[in-house]
C-alpha cells in the first residue's frame, strides 16, 4: 500500500518513523509541516491508497476527504471528548484510563467512522509521560490497523451520544486562589499536570499581573509515604 503520513509534532514523527516499516506499506511519503503540505501534498495524493493524519492542526479540505481514504487518531474513547484539547479535558475531569481512536477523517470534527481503538493511559505527572503513552498506544493501534486492513470495517459513530469540547485557551490555564479552597489537591494536580510543557502552564496571577507558573508537580495520596523525607 502507498501511504502518505502527515504529522509535525515530535510524538507523531516518532510514530511515523516506526509504522512506516510495516510490511504492508510498500511506499510512504511523510509530510512534516504545513509548508511541506502546501507544496507537495497535491502532487502525491493521487498516487496514495491511504492518508494518515497524526496530530494535524490544519483543516483538511472536503475535496481530499471525499475522494481519498483519510484516517486520523483522536486521543479519546470516541464519541466522548470530541473536539479540542481532548487530553486536557479528560485529565481535568479525572479520566485516567481512556482510548485512542482511529477514525475516518470527515467533515464532522472527530465524527468520522471508527476503525479501531486502543487503550490509552493518562497517568503520569508530566505531558512528556502522557505523550509517550500516546505515542506507544497509537503505534500499537496503527500496527493493528495495518495488520487487519483491508479485512476491517469501520463503525459509524453515534453522535447523539458522547461529548464535545472546545479547544482550551491560555487564559483557561489560570488557577484562582479560591480553587485551593473548593478543589481537592488531586483535582489541582490533574489540572497542573495536563498543562505541563509543551502546553501553556497552569498559573496563579496576582492583582498586579505577576504570574506564578507551575512547571512540574507530583501528587502522593495520604496513605502513601511522604517522598524525599
Amino acid at each position, binding site marked *: 500500500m502507498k501511504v502518505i503520513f502527515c504529522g509535525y509534532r515530535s510524538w507523531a514523527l516518532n510514530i511515523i518513523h516506526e509504522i512506516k516499516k510495516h510490511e504492508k506499506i510498500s511506499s510512504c511519503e511523510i509530510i512534516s509541516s504545513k509548508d511541506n503540505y502546501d507544496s507537495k501534498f497535491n502532487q502525491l495524493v493521487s498516487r496514495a491508497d491511504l492518508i494518515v493524519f497524526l496530530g494535524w492542526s490544519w483543516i483538511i479540505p472536503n475535496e481530499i476527504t471525499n475522494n481519498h481514504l483519510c484516517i486520523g487518531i483522536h486521543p479519546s474513547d470516541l464519541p466522548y471528548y470530541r473536539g479540542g484539547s481532548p487530553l486536557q479535558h479528560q485529565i481535568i475531569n479525572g479520566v485516567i484510563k481512556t482510548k485512542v481512536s482511529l477514525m475516518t477523517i470527515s467533515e464532522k470534527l472527530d465524527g468520522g467512522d471508527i476503525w479501531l481503538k486502543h487503550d490509552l493511559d493518562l497517568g503520569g505527572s508530566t505531558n512528556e509521560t502522557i505523550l509517550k503513552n500516546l505515542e506507544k498506544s497509537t503505534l500499537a493501534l496503527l500496527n493493528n490497523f495495518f495488520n487487519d486492513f483491508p479485512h476491517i470495517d469501520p463503525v459509524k459513530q453515534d453522535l447523539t451520544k458522547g461529548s464535545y469540547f472546545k479547544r482550551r485557551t491560555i487564559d483557561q490555564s489560570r488557577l484562582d*486562589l479560591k480553587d485551593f479552597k473548593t478543589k481537592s*489537591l488531586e483535582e489541582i494536580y490533574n489540572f497542573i499536570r495536563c498543562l505541563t510543557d509543551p502546553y501553556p502552564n497552569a498559573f496563579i496571577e496576582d492583582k498586579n499581573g505577576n504570574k506564578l507558573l507551575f512547571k512540574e508537580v507530583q501528587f502522593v495520596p*495520604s496513605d502513601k509515604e511522604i517522598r524525599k523525607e
Partner: protein
Amino acid sequence: MKIIFLAYRDWSLKVYEYIRRHPKINNSVLCKTHNELLKIDLKKYDLIISCGWSDELGKDILNKIDAIGVHCAELDRYSYGSPLQLQIIDGITRTKHRVFSFTYDENSPRAHTHNCLYSHEVELDLSGNMSDILEQLTSTSKVLFSRFLDDFPTIEWRKWPVEEIVRKKREPRDSIIQKKDISTMSTLELYNFFRCLEDPYPNGAIEDEHGILFIEKVRFLKKS
C-alpha cells in the same frame, strides 16, 4: 600544601576537581563522608577545605587541623543552617558568598560552631531556580577557595556583625504548607517558597486531608 577536601553534593564535587589543581596544592584527598574523614591521619595534611558539608567537624578534628568552608549569607541570622532557603523565603535576592573559618567554639549555637570570621567574599545572586543558584555556588566556591589559596598563609580574617535574630535551620516538615494557608501568601512568596525547595532539597508541598501535592518546579513572570 596538602589538603583534605570535604564534599558530597553534586555542585561541590565540581569545585574539588578545580581546586585540587591549584598551584599551591601538591597533595589532596577527597572525603565524601564523615567516616572517611575519621580514617585520615590529619597530621599529614595542612588544611581541611569544606564545601557544602553538613556534618559538624567537632572538637577532636578542629584541635588538630585548620579548616575553612564557604557560607552563603551576609547576615549573621542565617548562620544556623539552611541559609539559602531562609534567605530566599525572606525575600533576599542578593547576598554574599564567603570563606569562613572553622574556629571551634563549643558555646556557639551556629552551624559548624564557628565564630563569624571570614576572609574572602563575592556577590551571590539568589534569584532564579535552585539549579541556577547551585551552578553559581560551584563557580563562586572555585573563586573563593582559589583566592584564599593564592593569599595563604597571609590571610586577613574579618568578623561579620553578630545579630540577636536567629533563623533556625529548616526541617523537612517545614517544606509542607497547608492548603488553607495558600491564600495567605502572595504570588511572590509562593514562588520563593517553592523555588528554594526545588531538587535536590525536600520539595515544597501543599497538604490536605487526602494527600500531598509536591511542587517540583516553578517559574515567576513579573509583569513588565
